[in-house]
């Protein structure tokens, strides 16, 4: 139990502002991570597609 009035004041300030600060950081990081993650996933998919196409091309040129 905090009895020092000054400290109690300080804590109450922290308590009113922390959700905003935490929210700001959470949004910032969540958006960045999700965006980069999605881009990486798409990149992986495209890479796979390209490999399929390239192997098809190789097979064709070998066949000719």
């Amino acid at each position, binding site marked *: 139990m905090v009895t020092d009035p000054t400290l*109690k004041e300080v804590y109450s300030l922290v308590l009113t502002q922390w959700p905003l600060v935490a929210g700001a950081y959470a949004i910032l990081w969540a958006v960045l991570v999700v965006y980069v993650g999605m881009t990486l996933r798409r990149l992986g998919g495209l890479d796979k597609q*390209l490999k399929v*196409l390239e192997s098809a091309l190789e097979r064709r040129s070998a066949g000719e």
Partner: protein
Amino acid sequence: MRSTTTRAFIALVVGGVLTLAAFLGAFFWAGVPDFGFVRTAERADSVRYQGPFEQAIDETRYLTNFIGYDVEVVSGGETFRGDLLEADEVHVTLQTAEGEVRVSAAEFESGLVRGSSYGRPDWGQKIFYFHVPVAEISFIVFGFAAFYSLRFIMTRKREYDTKARISMEVTLLFVLLTMATGILWTKAAWGVWWDWEPRLTTYFIMTLLVVAYFVLRNAVEDEERRALYAAAFSILGFIDAPISFFITRLIPSNHPVIERGGLEPPMLISFIIAQVGMIAFGYAIYQLRMGEVLLKDRIEHAKTLLER
């Protein structure tokens, strides 16, 4: 392709390390700045306020905005709560460890109250370390988009259109992040979620401009025409955004201004590290998207070869 993804990963790692460092610095190294003073009474009887009314209002508004204390306004023998009418006396009720204490606003100001005073810790300021870099980068990348658009108009090379488009995407991402963190900071610092203040307004307009850029792109059929229109619009938008910022200052504004003063070294260093880290992130995202576009081009190319 290989090189763009490699570059992107390096930038991602650098950005990650730097932003983590900046985060730690901001929370565990840099101090919490003061935002005005709070003077609290150990014990106080109700003291009538004698000074000029305006001053008392200023003082008490600080408190109501940030701590949520009650303001009691006494006017002509009647008492209004939380209403800033013209009044003879203003009382502030403080909730201290020893129960409710009523003091006058003048006492806060004069320091005459029997009690201690301390700086008000501004925790909301922690948002600053990342909000400001993100905002700056959004503007820098917008500049890049305009630059590439100009290059595109001069050369008509598709690569510049791609670069401009991707820069614009990064701008959109960062502008949205700026808006989100900015709104939260507005609430923390001024007690309201939104204010038509020059910076906020400018970012609102900028968000609309960037969204409009993509609306325009989606609405044009022909690829080259789309590129030209988009380029012209992004140049116009880049000229427009600073005008928006300066002109919004025409509106009389009365909200409190954050006194940032000079930054102490721990704060400044954390801030700079965050800035560099965010630039690395912006670069990484740019390169990732670039790699994606190049991959798509190669896939298109392979497909046309196969169809032949």
